[in-house]
């Protein structure tokens, strides 16, 4: 009996190997599923949801300028501290203009007795001067995009990036947006 059992077990094992080989053979005849990268690239439709590094969104009126109001929310929420926003410096006071304006009278809140026009309020420039992203430390968590109050940030679908130097991953996003707007208008003209 022992011998028969041994043989039966061996046959069963052999059968399992043949079944496995059959599956391997079937799979061998199927077309490949991998993308052969340098010769083929991933289709654009598969990249729609891909999170590349962040980029600025052009505003409606001026595609070369972002709707960013430099609230610095993204800069402060970033866990890795890889966003650096450069603000426009506050407008320099013109000493000649200061002489003409009667500042004290207006500051008190009372209507002054002079006929001189009130000083024009200077709107502070809210758009950023520079928007630097250090992609080396970014972990693509999306907190900056989510916390932006004016939806000025989004993820790009850029992923064909490789460089031996770290400096290549410090992006000037304002310049990038301007370049994007430039190519967009050039396409429209065509």
């Amino acid at each position, binding site marked *: 009996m022992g011998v028969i059992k041994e043989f039966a077990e061996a046959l*069963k*094992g*052999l059968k*399992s*190997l043949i*079944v*496995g080989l059959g*599956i*391997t053979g079937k*799979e061998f005849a199927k077309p490949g*599923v991998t993308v052969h990268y340098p010769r083929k690239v991933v289709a654009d439709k*598969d990249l729609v*949801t*891909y*999170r590349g590094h962040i980029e600025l969104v052009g505003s409606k009126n001026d595609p070369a300028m972002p709707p960013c109001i430099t609230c610095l*929310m993204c800069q*402060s*929420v*970033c*866990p*890795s501290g890889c966003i650096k926003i450069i603000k426009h410096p506050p407008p320099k006071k013109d000493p000649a203009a200061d002489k003409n304006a009667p500042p004290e009278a207006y500051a008190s809140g009372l209507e002054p007795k002079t006929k001189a026009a009130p000083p024009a309020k200077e709107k502070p420039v809210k758009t950023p001067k520079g928007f630097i992203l250090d992609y080396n430390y970014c*972990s*693509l*968590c*999306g*907190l900056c995009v*989510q*916390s932006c109050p004016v939806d000025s940030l989004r*993820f790009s679908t850029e992923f064909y990036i490789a460089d031996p130097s770290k400096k290549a991953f410090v992006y000037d996003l304002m310049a990038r947006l301007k370049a994007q707007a430039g190519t967009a208008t050039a396409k429209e003209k065509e």
Partner: protein
Amino acid sequence: MSVFPKGDFYTRHFQPSGKEETLVVNMGPQHPSTHGVLRIIVELDGEYILRCEPVLGYVHRMHEKMGENRSWVQYWPNTGRVDYLHALAWNWAYAGAVEKLAGIEVPERAEYIRVITCELNRVSSHLLWWGAYLLDLGAFTPIMYAFDDREEIMDMLQMPTGSRLTYCYYRFGGVSADLSDEFLKRLSRFIPYLRSRLPMYRDLVTENVILRKRVEDVGHIDEDMCRRYGCTGPVVRGAGVAYDVRKAEPYSVYDRFDFRIPTYPEADAFARYMVRMDEIEESLKIIEQAIATIPDGPYLSKSAPKPKWSAPKGEACFAVEGARGKITYYVASDGGRTPYRVKLRSPSYCNLSCFAEAAKGVILADAVSILGSLDLVIPEIDR
């Protein structure tokens, strides 16, 4: 005698056994079967292991300390990097702990989204384990089949989460993006497809006589040992104990779904293997039910915290079932900008600690099989 002592701290403290015929070997830190940087010091007598000791800490990244020096919201990316294979479970544990602490309500749709994505992530984790375990045992091709299916899951999870591995998708009070109709359609097509692939997996590998000889009756980790070391997940279910956090203390909407906890009483490597293969089916069952009943509504609560939010005073603990076992986050707050304490309980750490006892007296090749059957993720052990 050299001025410098021989070996490092661990080998010096391991060696003084005095036996001459034995050999002390370092398995790792760079060893293909350790999936990362785990080092095991093994004392061999011929082919047999006399004793062994795991050495940890090669990828220690201070996740607990990092929690103390960044704000509550800024800790999110860390949660996805503890266990990179089942990142969403860790996302969930942190979200759950902070929501419990601050009393943040989660919309029903967000709960369903969490269940769907977390279970999908569990399936992909088990598929990768399946491929990698067989790779350890010397079978190369199965991982190609596993990655073929896993690729589809990652493509799908990329749609709402935006990433493919280290997800940072959940937020306090919901998730960061809604599931699109396209995602749900693709998912409902995928479930029958993966189900039809499971018999193929069985024929290809599970029934294979070579695998059976490698995993059956190897690495006994019984209920008693699990209890002593605190093993959870497929290890304890492979020892015949039906313990699953999803059933034992149902969180979120898990109590609404009908699913089974697979258990096998054999307590060997094959039992753990079968538990995971059955869990894939159970996860698919949960996803199917969740898709059928997912309600409409917001995916993020309106009272969800703003970026500069900090939690009220207090402490909270939240446990979820990960692919490897019970994941627990403990958070304590003193009302300040940053958490006062973040404690992570990782299942792999406990599961690994029983390895030294389970591998005593086995052949070295079987030790590799035991190590693989524990489904270790080294970054999770070291945290």
